[in-house]
């Protein structure tokens, strides 16, 4: 029982970060129909930006987090303006290939700039865990999961409650009509891509100190983000959040009770089942299908 509780706590903490990765990706796909293979690289960028801000510039932790978010947003906006805008209207395959190129270019640039050796990102939290009866959780992880929840909440507010969010949703539903109604589609796309990338960078800056920062760290993050998005349904924000938590818990329980060697397989089996029985995602509403 104690073990089960600890597994659940671990799974939820892990799932919260998967969710943060997933919502950025799902937003970009949902609004722009761009399959962003470089998503994981923005995650890596966030981790290294946080490292530079903390270890070199000596900024406090929260400022470093903001710096990473800014770096992600900036590079995301740049990427959209320089590469995606000229290709708008091209087939999804062309754009996918371009994003694969961005992924490879960014990862190798990171390798060139930082070298292959993993870096440990300093953080101000005590390393001794908080203990609640039989449960242990590190203060840093608690901070990460709470910040992730706050960021997810902010993203939801932005999309549901602001004028910008309304314009984003209008673009998602029907781009041509939205354009006719005076929504500046170009700007909405730039903002969406920057926002999604900023969320990935935030995830990187949050998880970098929990794990380690290294150039290929984004590959695993990308994989998890895509899994989460498929679980939750493409373009579905709430679905990505729940999908993230679900994937985290499923992996944790699979590793704990089935076999740790097949940890990643558990997540993928879940995805195959979802694709077989609910191809639009677990949490797809009827109007999103098709």
């Amino acid at each position, binding site marked *: 029982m104690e073990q089960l509780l600890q597994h659940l706590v671990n799974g939820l903490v892990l799932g919260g970060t998967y969710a943060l990765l997933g919502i950025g990706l799902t937003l970009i796909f949902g609004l722009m129909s761009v399959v962003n293979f470089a998503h994981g690289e923005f995650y890596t960028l966030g981790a290294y930006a946080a490292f530079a801000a903390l270890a070199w510039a000596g900024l406090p932790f929260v400022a470093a987090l903001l710096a990473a978010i800014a770096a992600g947003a900036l590079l995301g906006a740049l990427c959209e303006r320089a590469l995606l805008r000229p290709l708008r209207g091209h087939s999804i395959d062309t754009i996918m290939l371009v994003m694969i190129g961005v992924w490879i270019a960014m990862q190798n640039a990171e*390798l060139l700039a930082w070298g292959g050796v993993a870096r440990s990102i300093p953080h101000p939290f005590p390393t001794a*865990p908080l203990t609640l009866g039989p449960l242990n959780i590190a203060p840093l992880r608690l901070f990460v999961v709470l910040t992730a929840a706050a960021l997810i909440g902010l993203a939801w507010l932005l999309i549901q409650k602001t004028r910008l969010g309304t314009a984003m949703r209008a673009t998602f539903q029907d781009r041509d009509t939205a354009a006719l109604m005076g929504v500046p589609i170009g700007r909405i796309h730039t903002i969406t891509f920057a926002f999604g990338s900023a969320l990935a960078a935030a995830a990187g800056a949050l998880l970098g100190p929990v*794990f380690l920062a290294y150039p290929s760290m984004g590959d695993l993050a990308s994989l998890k983000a895509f899994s989460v998005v498929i679980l939750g349904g493409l373009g579905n924000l709430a679905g990505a959040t729940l999908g993230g938590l679900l994937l985290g818990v499923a992996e944790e329980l699979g590793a704990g009770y089935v076999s740790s060697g097949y940890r990643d397989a558990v997540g993928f089996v879940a995805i195959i089942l979802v694709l077989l029985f609910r191809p639009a995602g677990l949490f797809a509403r009827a109007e999103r299908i098709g």
Partner: protein
Amino acid sequence: MLKRLVSTALVALVVLALLPAGGDAQAPGPIKIGVIQPLSGPVAASGNYVRMGAEIARDWINARGGVNGRRVELVIEDNKSDPKEAASAAEKLIVRDKVPAIMGAWGSSMTLAAMPKLEEYGVPMVVETSSAASVTKRGNPWVFRISPPSEMEALGLEQYVEKLGVKKADFLAVNTDWGRGSITAFGDMLRKKGVQVGAAEFMEQAATDMNAQLTKIKQTGGDTLFLTTAVEQITLVLKQGQEQRLARKIITTGGSSSPTQLIKQAGAAAEGSYHIVFFMPWFPEAMPDGRLARAFVDEWTKRGNPFEGLTEGFRGHDGVATIVEAVRLAGRDEPKAIQEALWKVSFTGVNGPIKFEKDGPAGKESGQSKPSIFIVQVRDGKVALPDFLKK
């Protein structure tokens, strides 16, 4: 325009085709040695350190006038920490670069994936890091290993089991040929010594969150955790073990733990942990050839290479030195001649004496050297010899 471009290209091609022929006539070119290492991907740090060590060996040999009057040149390929890439890197080195011998390919899974190419083309490879028993048991006569297989490592630890106070052990290993082989080897040795063996858990090579495995291991009530993976994951396991209040003696196997890097990156979480290593750069004088070891550490530091890489870097030196010694004995740089000469190699590298004995199925034996094995402990934020080894 196009015509001129084509004719220029043709001229360039003809010139290029003539160049090497002209070169051969004047003086023999350098002796090429292929190197396959993980220079990117999850275990990139280790691969880059091995490369740095290999470059030191190359420069030392060339400074002494090369071998058989010819310079040594390294042709380095990245296997991206991926077995598939290791196989294609081997093929590229053999077919395109025509190297007569290779050193590689760090991880056991990568080495095993590259091995069929050696047999296909008949080119020997000196294996500098891989620990899985299968590397020398598959009947591939082109494989010569200077790193210890897990069984040899376990045997090296056997004498210290009581002194370490191991009564009930658990395992956590990377889910590769290396990790799986290590659990078998150390598990067998411990059972023979009457030690209880509890959980055997695995993690993917790129995995970063090991809380599930640690939560499970915590339930077994063991006193020691044998940890087999590269330094990046060891760092994460130590940190997450601390977060989970996992009170265990930790012993890492495989020699890729880089205790100095652990102290830097895992901090207090590394305190007290034991590490099996094959080079002790903290006290080079204690190595079989103290002078060589000291010179290697000095050269490494002089180049500005990170100190924490030395426990991997020496492998690169010893691997290249082994191949060059075989070339010297063979008197020429042909794959078959080098393979035959490797059996006659006998010299002392940074790790200690290197000399190959036959291993694997009769008639198709691979070469296996018997490397020196050491155990160190992290104490007060420094690397030290464990108490039971002190005089």
